[in-house]
């Protein structure tokens, strides 16, 4: 059996009268790719935001890698080893590709005054090493981007921006990666391509665990090892892709119920 990397118990998030997450229990094993599915507004992104410290949960506990990270700040959660991408791309558009990737790498950088301002020779050397590392990572996703590593991200297409966001999340070597609808705003082919790239990367980094929010069920079936379905902030079920697709509760949530004769 694999070891449990992440778990949450009774996780609840209320915004005033609205319950966005309702007593969610979820466990993720190391090395899993968990697909998180559910209709719009079912609490998928809220789950990410609660875990990564953007919101404080109303109730419940979150454990990661043996530590209790309930209500921890975004910074602490990142330092513990959880990185994420955002549903609406949140890159720094006016900064270069390299800058954006480096934002995910501050854990390893010396941010001190002396080394940044006075030891410029040493700084220059580490900087060149970092460029090499960033290039290595970009090459996995799209080798064509290597040449424009010092150009602003604003010039890039949607799929390339997603790639850079994934690079930014991966460069700090997280244990758990949250991908919040990486296919939003992309065509079907582009989505497939990006997923293949993510799978290829996953086979390189066996330790990496991924949680993926995705609407396209075909993709979920292709890449995930397990799925969990949310509806109105509650978990309907979890299990393999096959088991959730066949689950009548899930079908009802997505397609609605068959109307019985009495109701007509």
């Amino acid at each position, binding site marked *: 059996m694999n070891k449990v990397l992440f778990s949450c118990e009774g996780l609840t998030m209320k915004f005033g009268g609205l319950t966005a997450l309702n007593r969610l229990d979820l466990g993720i094993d190391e090395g899993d790719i968990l697909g998180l599915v559910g209709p719009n507004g079912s609490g998928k992104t809220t789950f990410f935001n609660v875990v990564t410290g953007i919101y404080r949960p109303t109730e419940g506990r979150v454990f990661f890698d043996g530590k209790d990270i309930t209500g921890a700040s975004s910074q602490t959660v990142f330092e513990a080893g959880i990185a*994420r991408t955002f549903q609406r791309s949140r890159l720094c558009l006016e*900064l270069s590709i390299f800058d954006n990737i480096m934002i995910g790498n501050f854990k390893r950088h010396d*941010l001190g005054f002396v080394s940044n301002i006075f030891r410029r020779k040493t700084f220059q050397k580490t900087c060149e090493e970092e460029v090499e590392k960033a290039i290595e990572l970009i090459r996995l996703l799209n080798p064509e981007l290597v040449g424009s590593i010092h150009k602003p991200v604003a010039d890039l297409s949607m799929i390339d921006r997603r790639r850079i966001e994934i690079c930014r999340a991966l460069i700090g070597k997280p244990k758990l990666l949250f991908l919040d609808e990486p296919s939003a705003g992309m065509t079907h082919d582009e989505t497939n391509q990006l997923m293949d790239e993510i799978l290829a990367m996953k086979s390189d980094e066996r330790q990496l665990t991924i949680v993926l929010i995705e609407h396209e069920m075909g993709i979920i079936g292709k890449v995930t090892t397990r799925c969990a379905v949310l509806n109105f902030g509650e978990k309907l079920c979890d299990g393999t892709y096959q088991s959730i697709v066949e689950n009548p509760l899930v079908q009802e949530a997505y397609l609605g119920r068959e109307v019985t004769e009495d109701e007509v």
Partner: protein
Amino acid sequence: MPNSRDFLRCSALAALLFTYIGFLLGAEEELSIAAYLLCGAGVVIALVLFDVFSAIERLVQANETFWQVLMLAGTLALIAVFHQDHYTLFLIGTIFIYSVAVLGINVQLGYAGVINFSGASFFGIGGYTAAVFLQNTSIPGSLTLPLGGLFAAVIGSLLLLPVLRTSGHYSALVTMAFALLMKVFLEVSEWLGGPQGLSLPPLEFMGINFAEDIVIMGKECSFYVKYDMVCLALLVLAFVFVRRVERSWMGLAMDAVRIDETAAACFGVNVTRWKITAFTMGNFVIGMAGALYAMMLSYINPSNFTFSDSLLFLSILLLGGIGSIWGVIAATAFMVVIPEKFQVVQEYRYLIYSAMVLAMILFRPSGLLPRKPRSYAMGGRS
């Protein structure tokens, strides 16, 4: 070293630029000044429209160090040309000092996104610190500069808590309140001379008395030449410092905080730390500039450091291009020289400033010389 073609191009450009500035500074009749300004504006607009401007930018970027040397040489040449003209030399010194102060604002607003509507207050704190220390102690003039910076940074840290607890308009209001408070405090404080202000004894530095004219290479020079040299030295220091902050992980962390606090925090960036760092560093730089300004004026009072001056600092930053160091220097030169040279508009200068800022926001929102994508190397991109 640049290749010979770039060498010639850069030199020719710099020569043209400084000849123009020289004529503008030397012009005395309002009609000729207006003609020079119109010519200058026409040339700049034509260059931008015909895309020559971006070619020049690329040329300068590729030969960064050489261009900086040229700018320094040109400035020294200007000072040499006007070596007897007290007034013009004073103007040049003022440009240097204001540039330093706006570079401080640039670290705060341009990098970390911390808005500061009390720039002139910190400028004033630096000035008053210098005055008090020079009057009451035997601390050498050179030491009062960092002391001015230190006092501005320390007093600025009082503002940190309210600025960090609020955001957007509210933190702008906090700094505005501080600016008004500071002005009133200076006006009523007996100890600081009240509305009459304080006078500073002439600066002495390494045995040189800064109040006496000097003779350099057989030529009689205004004592302002000495002040200009010190101001220029401070500007070069501030330039190098701010550049290095920008081209480092510190600058990147500040950019990340400015552009998207939430995303930055999700990547482990300590938002509070970088706001504090930027605010304090900025105030230190502004305070140093203020201390030197007080020494050059040799007499300061509260009306040197009003809320309008804080607005002027911010307008200069907007006009030059937020985050752009050369933009700051160019815009400062413009904003300082125009009202001084154009006495007719002196009364209306804030009207003109605001019109220019509005025009800039409408037609070229990234400023006169927009900030370039970061390169981490010094001395130009290879």
